[in-house]
Structures are given as structure tokens and as C-alpha cells.
């Protein structure tokens, strides 16, 4: 059953990809959607058996890499953590597959698109079912490639292929850390299998190693290197630049990959490695700081963007920051809980945005929208539900998970945790603000699009609306349903051994015993954020403009995303190309070839010419040089005779 869940999407991808031209677009759609729905149903059964029934299992498929003491296998490990991810991945993916049938109906390469989607799903499933670091790396890179292919799906657009490369390369920077982390872990534990590593971790808690000429606490350095990988994939501050650009891909892709599943792989990985991270307070503090910084950074940028998808992208980045600082305070359960609820409401928001873009004849700038709620009532309601859940308004999904995270941050009683709480509250305020800014500018107020576009505004077909309804159900009920299991009283029986919390890190327990104002504050700030958005964009529309003009510097700074792209371009990209050109022309051309082969060849020619000039053909030249020679020899003889 587990094997089928994982490999059915691969089958779908292969059939649609290789035989797409024989079975036609419709055939490709039926096969990929059908197989994925089967896979989603199976994932539900697995969740029931493994997570609710408490029967984790591992299936060995085949050997992979065997060399010396390195022994890597292809296997599928399913425990509660994996089962939750299976649900998230297959259900959201199934919704997106079906939605794409409608969204991509005018495209010329539908089979290719469906094939890529299924391929992505397969790689993601391999990632979450890995029982060793190397197989996880396989899935990790696999989703990276699928993401590359899908971002660059409309390859005729230069911006799309540029964004695709950027995504792949920035992710590779993270993978560079991940790979070194794998090598370090192997160095420390002599194995790359999770079970072996986790079993040995407590014994190595005090070990030190010397990497890169510095003596480190062994587990800390491994965790930090692995975390670099997680930062790349989950778009954390510093390695986040690819995510907003990735919105060049078709919208279903943004929903599936860049909101619900792939970008959460980093969160999953760190949660999976909890038995290692628990033994390094330094690494956890780093995770907390990076997460909190990302949460607030992305929220500030999200407030001033004008592209509907980019706003949601920065929102995703910010929410991932929440998940990471939850992990940093050892509330892994809360992080995964938020991951799950976030998958539903963020996929809903993205697909809703796709529906809006579809309705607005491919317009993405929210300044050119407005007043369309009457024409797309279903989408409008669904976007409201998504935003309510995202902002953490009580009794929607985000409320449960986000509040737990903030309470756990407070409950950690560490400086980093407290800081994360305050930054998290500030980000919650901004989250509510930008969500309503988006809603108000898109759906309410006066129409700002031209009449031609407005005349075409229409509701999407049922094949697009049905998946939205499904996700909306999740966005409303997932938090309420999951609370007890994921982070409430039943959480120990639910998670079993898939996540480790040492006694030194009781943040999640403390989360239930925080002062009342700590628990209430997030809701209060969320509501005030909404109120502020109404003030700015409904009652006093002049205010934001005046504000932007007064604080031009700050506005430009935020609008240009803190100038990260410009910075990286100046210190990495351009110098690399300049250096490459310099090394090629100067190093290879002038120095190595100039002194080496070409130089020697030229010198040979010159010397040979000199010698050939001596062959003048005049007898007296030869006689003269003979005489000189005789004189030299005689002299030498006389001097040596003594």
C-alpha cells in the first residue's frame, strides 16, 4: 500500500511524459489525476493505520549505494510524522492536479504539465518517506528539479527561465550545506540511516570534531550544516530570493510547490532530525533567530508588493519563518501542525488568486483590480476564508496553529524564544494587514480595470471550484480537528517516537500554561491589522499614498525587498562572471598557453630562424666560424693543460 502510494504518481508522470502524444491531453489528465486520487485515498488509509493506529513501519525496496561501510538503501519509512506529510502532499497535490485541468485548458502542452506535477509529487513522497539522509537528498533534489521545470514551464518567457535557474542555483547553495551535513553526520555516526543516527545521538552529545580547522561541538556543526539545506529549500532569510521569482510559474505550481509542499520540506527535515537537534542548544537558537527574522522580514515586504502572487509568496516565506522558530523552541509538533493547516489555507489562497487571475484575463497587479466580488462570488468567499485562516482569526485553522507556536515561543523561557514571540506578534499584525489589503484592493472598492477586462470577468468552471471547496473545508476545520492530536493532550500517543523532546525543552508543555494576555495578544493584533487595512484602503485611501511619500526611503527599501537581489548580484553573480572571463582569457589564454605550448612553439620557430640564417651558403662564413671554433678549442686546451 505504501509502495503504491509513492510510486503511482511516478507511473502517472512516466505515462503522461513519454506517451503524452499518443494518449492525448485528455488521456494524460485522466491518468495523472486518477492515479493521484488513488494515491490520496491510500494515504488516508495509511494515516489511519500508522498515525491513528500507532503502527509505524519501514519497507525495504532495494539496495542503493554500497561502498565500504556506507550502506544506503531505497526504503520507505512511515511513522506519524511521515503519515501527516503523506496526507498533506497527496491531498493538496490531488486538488492541484484536478484544478490544473481547468486552469491549463488553453495551454499547448498539457500532458507535459501534468507529467511534471506528478513527477514532483513522486519526488516529494520519496523525500518524506526516506529512512536515511541520502534518500532524503534524492527527494530533495528531485523536488528541486521538478520545481525548476515547472517554474520554467513557459520557457518562451525569458523571465520564467531566469527564475527557474535562480531557484535551482539558490537551492543548490542550500544543498551544498545539506551535503556537507550528510558527510559530517556520517563522519560522526558512521551511518546515514536515521535509526542508527538517532540511537547513537545521546552518546555523542558531548563529542567534538574538528571541521574546517575549528573544533566544534559535533552535533551542533552537523545540525547547522543540515539547517543550511533547510534554509535554501524553505526560503529562509538569506536564501529566500528565489521564492518570489518562482511565481513566474503557472499558479497551480505556486500553490502546490511554493506554498504547500516543497518549501515546507526544510521544516519537515529539521523536525525529522529532532533527535539530533535536541542535543544542540546552539543550533536550536540559530533556527529560532533565523525563523523569527524571516517571519518579520517577509511580512514587511509583503505589505508593499503589488503583484497578487508575490504578496502571497512573501506571506508563505513569513509563515515558514513561524514554523522554524517553533522548531527552534523545540515545539516541532506545533511546527508540523502549522505546516499542515498552512498547506490547506495557503494552497487555497494561491488557487483562489489563480482563479482571480484567470477571471481578470491574466492581470496580476492588484492596483488594476478592484470591485470584482459581484462577478466571482464563490472565489471571493473562498479567498475570505483563506485570509481569515491566514490571519489567525479565531476558530479558523491558522488560529489554532499560529497561536500554539507563539505560546510555545513564550513558554520556552529563553531570550531567543521571547524575542521570537514579540517578532511573531508584530508579523501577525502585518500578516492581517497585507491579507486585507489584498482582499480590499482585489475584490472591493471601485473597479480599476478597463471595461474590456471587466466585461470578461467570470467565475471559474466547476473543475477549478471543487478543489477550492475541498481546500476551504481544510482551512476551516483542520485546526479545530487536529489541535488535540498534534499539540493538545493526545500528542504523545499521536507522535510516538517520530519526534523527540528532551526534558530540557518543555516549550510545548508550557504553551498550555502561559498568562492570558500572551494567548490573547496574537488575536488582538490580527484584528487591529484588519482594522488598519480597512482604514487605509476603504475609509481613507489617501493615507497610504501620503505615508509612502513621507517615508520614501523606507517605502523604497521595502518595495525593493531590502535590496537582497541587488546585493547578491553585486557580490556573487557579477564577480563570478568577471572572474570566469578573466581566468579564461588571462589564465588559460595568456599565461598557460602563452608561456606553455604556444610560447614554446613560438620560441622554437624564432630559434630555428636564427639558426637557419647561419646557413648562408658563403664558403668564407663557414671557414670563419670554423676558425673561431678551432681558436676556442685551442685556448681551452692550453688553459686546461696546466
Amino acid at each position, binding site marked *: 500500500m505504501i509502495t503504491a502510494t509513492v510510486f503511482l504518481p511516478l507511473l502517472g508522470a512516466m505515462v503522461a*511524459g513519454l506517451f503524452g502524444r499518443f494518449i492525448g491531453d485528455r488521456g494524460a489528465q485522466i491518468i495523472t489525476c486518477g492515479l493521484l486520487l488513488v494515491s490520496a485515498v491510500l494515504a488516508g488509509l495509511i494515516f489511519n493505520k500508522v498515525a491513528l493506529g500507532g503502527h509505524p513501519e519501514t519497507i525495504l525496496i*532495494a*539496495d*542503493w*549505494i*554500497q*561502498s*565500504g*561501510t*556506507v550502506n544506503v538503501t*531505497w526504503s520507505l519509512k512511515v511513522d506519524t510524522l511521515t503519515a501527516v506529510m503523506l496526507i498533506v502532499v497527496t491531498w493538496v497535490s490531488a486538488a492541484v492536479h484536478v484544478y490544473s485541468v481547468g486552469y491549463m485548458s488553453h495551454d499547448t502542452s498539457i500532458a507535459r504539465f501534468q507529467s511534471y506535477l506528478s513527477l514532483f509529487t513522486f519526488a516529494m513522497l520519496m523525500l518524506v518517506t526516506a529512512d536515511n539522509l*541520502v534518500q532524503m*537528498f*534524492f527527494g530533495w*533534489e*528531485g523536488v528541486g*528539479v521538478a520545481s*525548476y*521545470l515547472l517554474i*520554467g514551464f513557459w*520557457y*518562451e518567457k*525569458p523571465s520564467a*527561465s*531566469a527564475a*527557474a*535557474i535562480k531557484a*535551482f*542555483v539558490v537551492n*543548490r*547553495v542550500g*544543498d*551544498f550545506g545539506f*551535503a*556537507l551535513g*550528510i*558527510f*559530517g553526520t*556520517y*563522519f560522526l555516526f558512521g551511518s546515514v540511516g536515521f535509526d542508527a543516527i538517532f540511537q547513537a545521538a545521546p552518546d555523542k552529545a558531548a563529542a567534538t570534531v*574538528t*571541521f*574546517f*580547522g575549528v573544533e566544534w561541538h559535533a552535533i551542533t556543526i552537523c545540525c547547522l550544516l543540515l539547517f543550511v539545506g533547510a534554509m535554501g529549500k524553505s526560503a529562509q532569510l538569506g536564501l529566500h530570493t528565489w521564492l518570489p521569482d518562482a511565481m513566474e510559474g503557472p499558479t497551480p505550481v505556486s500553490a502546490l510547490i511554493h506554498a504547500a509542499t516543497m518549501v515546507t520540506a526544510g521544516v519537515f527535515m529539521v523536525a525529522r532530525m529532532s533527535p539530533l537537534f535536541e542535543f544542540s542548544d546552539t543550533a536550536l537558537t540559530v533556527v529560532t533567530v533565523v525563523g523569527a527574522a524571516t517571519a518579520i522580514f517577509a511580512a514587511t515586504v509583503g505589505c508593499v508588493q503589488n503583484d497578487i502572487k508575490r504578496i502571497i509568496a512573501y506571506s508563505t516565506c513569513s509563515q515558514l519563518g513561524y514554523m522554524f522558530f517553533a522548531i527552534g523552541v523545540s515545539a516541532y509538533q506545533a511546527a508540523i501542525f502549522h505546516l499542515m493547516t498552512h498547506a490547506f489555507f495557503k494552497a487555497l489562497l494561491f488557487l483562489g488568486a489563480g482563479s482571480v487571475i484567470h477571471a481578470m484575463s491574466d492581470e496580476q497587479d492588484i492596483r488594476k483590480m478592484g470591485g470584482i466580488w459581484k462577478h466571482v462570488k464563490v472565489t471571493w468567499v473562498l479567498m475570505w476564508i483563506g485570509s481569515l485562516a491566514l490571519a489567525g482569526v479565531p476558530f479558523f485553522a491558522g488560529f489554532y496553529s499560529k497561536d500554539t507556536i507563539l505560546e510555545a515561543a513564550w513558554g520556552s523561557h529563553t531570550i531567543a524564544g521571547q524575542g521570537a514571540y514579540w517578532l511573531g506578534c508584530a508579523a501577525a499584525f502585518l500578516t492581517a494587514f497585507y491579507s486585507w489589503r489584498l482582499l480590499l484592493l482585489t475584490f472591493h472598492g471601485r473597479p480599476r480595470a478597463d471595461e474590456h477586462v471587466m466585461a470578461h470577468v467570470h467565475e471559474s468552471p466547476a473543475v477549478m471550484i471543487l478543489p477550492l471547496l475541498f481546500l476551504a473545508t481544510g482551512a476551516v476545520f483542520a485546526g479545530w480537528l487536529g489541535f488535540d492530536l498534534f499539540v493538545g493532550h493526545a500528542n504523545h500517543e499521536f507522535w510516538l517516537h517520530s519526534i523527540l523532546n528532551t526534558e530540557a525543552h518543555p516549550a510545548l508543555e508550557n504553551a498550555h500554561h502561559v498568562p492570558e494576555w500572551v494567548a490573547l495578544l496574537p488575536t488582538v493584533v490580527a484584528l487591529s491589522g484588519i482594522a488598519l487595512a480597512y482604514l487605509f484602503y476603504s475609509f481613507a485611501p489617501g493615507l497610504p499614498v501620503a505615508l509612502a511619500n513621507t517615508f520614501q526611503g523606507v517605502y523604497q527599501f521595502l518595495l525593493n525587498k531590502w535590496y537582497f537581489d541587488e546585493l547578491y548580484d553585486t557580490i556573487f553573480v557579477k564577480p*563570478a*562572471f568577471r*572572474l*570566469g*572571463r578573466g*581566468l*579564461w582569457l588571462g*589564465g*588559460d589564454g595568456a599565461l*598557460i*598557453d602563452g608561456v*606553455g*605550448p604556444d610560447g614554446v612553439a613560438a620560441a622554437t620557430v624564432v630559434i630555428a630562424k636564427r639558426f637557419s640564417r647561419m646557413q648562408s651558403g658563403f664558403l668564407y662564413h663557414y671557414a670563419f666560424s670554423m676558425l673561431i671554433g678551432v681558436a676556442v678549442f685551442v685556448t681551452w686546451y692550453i688553459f686546461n693543460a696546466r
Partner: protein
Amino acid sequence: MNDWPLLSLTTFLPLLGALFILTIRGEAEVVTRNARAVALLTSVATFIVSLFILVKFNGSSPDFQFKETATWFPGTTIAYSMGVDGVSMWFVILSTFLTPICILSSFAGVTKRVKEYMVAFLVLETMMVGMFCALDLVLFYIFFEAVLIPMFIIIGVWGGQRRVYAAFKFFLYTLAGSVLMLLAMMAIYFEAHTTDIPSLMAHSFPFALQQWLWLAFFASFAVKVPMWPVHTWLPDAHVEAPTAGSVILAGVLLKMGAYGFLRFSVPMLPDASVYFTPLIYTLSIVAVIYTSLVALVQDDMKKLIAYSSVAHMGYVTIGIFSMTVQGVEGAIFQMLSHGIVASALFLCVGVVYDRMHTREIARYGGLATRMPIYAAVFMLFTMASVGLPGTSGFVGEFLVLLGVFQVSSWVAFFAATGLVLGCTYMLLLYRRVMFGRLVREDLKAILDLDLREVAVFVPLILIVIWMGVYPSTVIEPIHATVAKMIDNYELARAAHEGLSVAAR
């Protein structure tokens, strides 16, 4: 067929085919057709024969197998002696596998002097296979040098614009290194009084002599690998060589240097190898970073891939000299994988070169629209080249880095930067050729892969994926040989250290 001389058969069967082609007479067209057919048949037959080696190879034994010996120069120890172990066996198969693919791929590209071309290729195959099988120093040297001749001719006659320059550069560069190797071989003979490679592996040379011998071998092998800074012949040779020439160059000839390190430097001169390991690490790291940066700015498709080859071979040399099981096995695997992947990439370039007669990247763009199958094939090999897990490229790189990390984390750190740089230049290449809008008039009529081209690529694709998903098939027969090599190496090291302690 247990007592058949399988190795000699594999080695000299192509030569027989070449002789047969030489006898073909008649109308030009008929000669061309027959020469092609005979060459293809011969190389396929050779491949089939070589498969018997694979099947009958005993992977659990670290010794040389299928040994054949015949006296050659009476009165000396120099003999005609052949045999393969876990290391060389795969390279024999690689050579016999790539040759038919090369011959098939040049049916469209090579139209003049086809008969001579096919003869050159079959002779080349004999020399390559012979080199990997040779168990005698002199025999090895003869094959090693003889490989240059057909390759020189292939580049010089069927090459591009600057073919003569490239051919001479290639020949003189490699020959200059080899002269020193010949001196070293003579020194070995006078010291050990034998040219038998297995006996030499057991012989222990004094440390001072080891250093000189090591440097002399290094001069020859470093050029062949090629290591930085003696790599500059490679881009020129690749660019000017015809497609199939590039394929063999990248697929097999580049492996000769690394094979030399594995066969001579490390087992025969272990102390010197330890002594010079930092040198190898430094040059390899420079190669990985330097050539990757240079590859970023290339305008010529073949030159870009040539520079990427230098970077990939940097991993190989790092792996060999890490002297860990993973490092050495990874290096061998990386060589085999690179042999397939780089060959396939050159074939990919050849496909569009045959159609448009230019390799300039800027002349292309948007090919994915007209050539979807080609785009998919090219994408697969691009991914294999950047070391995507699940393709053969990953396994080698991963094992090498894992192995060297156990010895030196800094080396692993710098080498791993290749992960980032490598994907950058390959994806940029892919983007500039495949993506974007198809605007050039002459490209609008370009055709996708035809049946012959698909037949060329399919075996390569299957092997790349198989090696990536189930690499045990390849690594299994290597284990015993590598284990023995590392054991002997550790023993020699221990003996040397014991001596130096006693001398104190």
C-alpha cells in the same frame, strides 16, 4: 569457450575489421556504405565479445583475471601479458560500448574519406582496449602512446577550422608528458629488473626514487586527465574534433590518466603518493573552481562541456588520492559515469551541429519548441552532469566527497562548491540553447531527432538511469580490487613509517 583468449580477442578484433575495410574497393558510394557497415558490425561484435568478460568476471577475487602471457623479447622479462581486475574491466567495457555508438553517430557527420575514418576508429579501439588490458610496462607504454596516433589523425583530418593547431597541441602536450614516463619506466626496469606490472606492485621502491618516479608518471598522467594547469589542450581538441572524436576523447581518453594513477602511482609508489597528496588536492580543487568559472563564460557549446570535463575529472583525482574505500570507488564510478554523460552531451551538441553547422551558443535559442524529444534527452544528461540523485552523476560525486570528507573537511568543502557552480553553467547553457522564443529563421525548420539518433541515445539514457538507481551492478565487482589496493597501500605505509621510526 573457457580457454579462449578473450582479452586478446577483444583487443584485436577491431584491428581485423580495420584490415578488412582497407581491402574494400569499388565505387566511392559503395565503399562508403560498406565501410560503415563493416565498422559498425565489427564494433558491435567486439562489444558482444567483451560482454563475455563481464559475465565471466569473478567479482569476489581481487586478482588479475583472464591472464594471457607470451614471451615477446627473448632474453628479457618483457612479455606480451594481458589481464584485467575490477578496475580495468569496466574501462574495457566502456571502450567497447562507446565505439559502436561513435561509429553510428558519425554516419551523418562524416561524409568524406569515410573508409579511412572508420579504419582510424577501429585502430583506436584496439589501442584503447589494449591499454586497459596490458599487464606489462612496455606493452602498456606502446598502447598508451599508440592511442595518440589515430586520435591525432581524427582531429587533424576530420576536424573543424583550427584542426591542425588543435591536433598538434594535443599530440605534443601529451607526448611531452609521456617522454618522462618512458624514462621512469626505464628507471623502474633497472631497479626492479622486471616489467611485469603485478610483480612491480609487490616491489617496494626506496623513497627517494619513488618521488622521482612519481613526478615522472605524474607529468604524463596529469596531462591526460587533464589536471590544471596542463588542461589547455582539451578545450581546443574537443572543439576541433568531430563529434565522435570528442565522444571518445571525453569518454575514454580522459580516463587513461586517472587509470594510470590507479595502476601505477598509488600501488607502486605509495609513500610518494602520500607525500604528494596535498599537491593533487590543490590542483584538483583549483581545477574544480577555476574551470567551472571559466565554463560560465564560454560561447561555444563544446568548449563549455570540455571545461566541465576538467572540473569533473578534478573529483576523480581527489577521490583516488583520498585513499578511502568510498573515495576510490567513487572516483572509478565517477570516471565511468562521466564517460557516459560527457559522451552523451557531446553527442547532443553533435545533433544540432549536424543540422546547423555551428556550435556557437548565441546562434541557438528556443529549440525546445521544435525539438521536444531532443530537449528531453538533453535535459536528462544536463541533470546527470550536475549530479542529480537518481542519475549516475550523483553516485560518483557523492562517494568521492564523502570519502574525502573523512580525510579532510576543507578539501570536501571546496570541492563541493562545484555542486553550485556546476549546475549554474549547465543550466545557463541549457537555457540559452533550448529556452526562449524561437526567432531565428533558419532554426524554424529544424527537425527533431530521427530514428538513428534515438537509437544512439537510448542505450546511454538507460545506462545513466540504471547506474544512478542501482549502482551496485557496477560497484560490486570493484569492491575486492579496491579493498586489496587499499590494504596493500596501508601495509606499505606502515612499513615505511616503521622504517623511518627505526632510522631515527
